[in-house]
């Protein structure tokens, strides 16, 4: 069982600088060909200061920093037990190439189902830009199979 001491745990803060090349690589990886996501002129014509991050891109911040996986590991969950159960994004304002975001995540819930055969860890994140404006909120549910 995952120790309930993790409830309320705040993960180390992650910072991600958004770069055009990374955003173009992400667009390519997901098959996104809309010029708004790859062509700076098209992005500006659409009202963005630079290439916008697609709706799910900000998940990358804690993948790059490794904080989420390190936390999962510290909880005693191994890779073969781990599943991504749910994910959500609330968008408050656009994030574009040239921005730097800071992600703060806390463990909001830990619960189990099926007599403990499945355990769930809910993580909530706030994402802020350099002006300290809230740009997005993330909610992730990780599942541990026993």
């Amino acid at each position, binding site marked *: 069982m995952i120790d309930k001491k993790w409830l309320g745990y705040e993960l180390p803060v992650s910072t991600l600088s958004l770069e055009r090349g990374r955003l173009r*690589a992400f667009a390519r990886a*997901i098959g996104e060909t809309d010029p708004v996501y790859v062509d700076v002129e098209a992005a500006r014509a659409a009202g963005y200061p630079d290439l916008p991050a*697609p*709706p799910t*891109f900000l998940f990358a911040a804690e993948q790059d920093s490794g904080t989420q996986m390190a936390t999962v590991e510290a909880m005693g969950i191994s890779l073969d037990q781990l599943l991504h159960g749910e994910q959500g994004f*609330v968008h408050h304002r*656009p994030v574009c190439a040239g921005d730097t975001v800071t992600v703060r995540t806390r463990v909001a819930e830990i619960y189990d189902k099926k007599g403990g055969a499945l355990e769930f860890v809910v993580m909530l994140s706030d994402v802020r830009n350099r002006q300290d404006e809230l740009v997005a909120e993330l909610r992730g549910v990780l599942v541990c199979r026993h």
Partner: protein
Amino acid sequence: MTTFDPAAVTVGSELPALAIEPVNRTMLALFGCASGDLNPVHLDLDAARRLGLPDVFAHGMLGMAWLGRLLTGWAPQSRLRRIDVRFQGITHLGNAITCRGKVVEIRDVAGERCARVALSSSNQFGQLKIVGEALVSLA
């Protein structure tokens, strides 16, 4: 790209479906690097086998990103207020995913007229992989 007309959106409106080519290892390698998710269960067959898995499988977040494309291909991203999904099943190599969306409700959220869009992605065998919903501003 066709222009989005919020006035034309009604309950029952369907988003143009998005068909994705069958999942292959290159797609997973590209997504692993671009998303920062280097979990070996998506990238390294040997590591996957050591963990008792028959093969690598697609990142859940790749499937969610395709649903994001479905939405931004329909309405500009600046209208997307939220997207929430539940991963229902593993997407295997060779799975050809189709993403679908349908407006199920139009209501005011925080004083803004929004469309609630039911989302799903399934493979060529009709197996559901992701379900979810999104909120898109019609203001």
